[in-house]
């Protein structure tokens, strides 16, 4: 599992690649720390190469969303695959995020 962050003007884009399971959660949480502190940014969680997400992964996404709100930033989840969309629907997380 790899996480890369790119800054593009007002946007901060996090690219997730691989399986965001319990084992990958700790390094991923570390990797997304810059997103948590970003002020007034549009944070994009690019999931086009994310294959799987567990509860731990959902919690990371949720933390990013909560911290973003306190820093005046906005979070957008981009390009989730069908399996991840199903996870988002089953858990109701689909109502928590703006999904593109």
């Amino acid at each position, binding site marked *: 599992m790899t996480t890369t962050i790119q800054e593009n003007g007002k946007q901060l884009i996090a690219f997730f690649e691989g399986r965001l399971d319990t084992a990958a959660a700790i390094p991923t949480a570390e990797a997304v720390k810059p997103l948590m502190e970003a002020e007034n940014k549009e944070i994009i969680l690019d999931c086009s190469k994310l294959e799987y997400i567990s*509860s731990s992964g959902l919690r990371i996404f*949720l933390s990013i969303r909560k911290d973003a709100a306190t820093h005046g930033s906005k979070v957008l989840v981009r390009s989730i695959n069908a399996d991840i969309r199903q996870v988002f629907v089953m858990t*109701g997380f689909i*109502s928590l995020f703006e999904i593109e």
Partner: protein
Amino acid sequence: MMDLHSELILEEYRENLPVFERMKEEVVSKLTSALARNGLIVTAIEARVKTEDSLAGKLALKGQKYATLEDITDVLGARVITFYTDDVDRIAAIAEKLFDVDWENSVDKRRLHQLDSFGYNSLHYICRLPGYNFRFELQLRTTLQHAWAAINHDNGYKTGVEIPREYLRQMNRLAGMLELADDEFSRIRTEINDYRRRVQQLVQNGKLDDVLLDGDTFRSFLQARPFDALNKRIAAINQAEIQDVPLIRYLRVLKALQCNTLGDVKRLIVKYEDDAYRLARHQLGTTDLDIISSSVGIQNICIVCILDIGGGTMGLERFFNVVNGESSQNAALAQLTFEQASNLPFMQKKK
């Protein structure tokens, strides 16, 4: 050329410019905090320190009227522009607590008009900030009054006497119309607030069939957390934690499902909560997902209702499009959800 007296006042102005700038910051900050504390939302809070050119112009016209700079009360001018005419009085009451009001020089222009005249409506207070010698002017007016005053100011006439009679008549006609519109906006707000209070009373008394379903009434209904019991049952499947999320987006779906009153929504919950729980158990029971949002309960109730009334996969796809946004994946998701729900008792009976 400027006389010596006016020059001295201008010199005093230059020396005290930083004081006026500090006053400006303090006035805006005090007003902003006080309005926020009182839950008052306004169009704008603005303030400006008169420019040297503008002050020089004023002194050229009537410099002898002022002994010192302290006699000029509008070097600092602040303005609060409200949405509603009622709020002008509420903010005036707040300003009276924040600042020392110089009542002798304050004017309520709303009360100056004769019964048969219309025109500039605004409340002008001359105030003093504790700890400062200089006074400042605080204007309170509605957005419509502000629009009228700004446009009227733009015509280039400094006093009402200069304005051609026909133009004055037309501007006053508009002022009368805007005054009426201001009163109407206030009346509508009062009626909406009364309606909301009546709805809350009916919801609290359980008279749900008497309450038509709309944005206000659904919000009141949600305050009683009608989906909590179902969400907790669903959370217990995997010992999950529940994250709160606004449910207002489901209003459109509930209306499409023929819920016309809150009573209809309540009956929908009672009728479908067991099947909604079974669907969640079928979906989540085979996973280790131990975090859900509070939308799962209402989402699953809508899903089983759509299937029960024969909406099929097309109905589910439309539902996902409305609630979660359009996506090319929603058709496949609808198909999958249909298959997952096909083992539920009410679906078995349909076969």
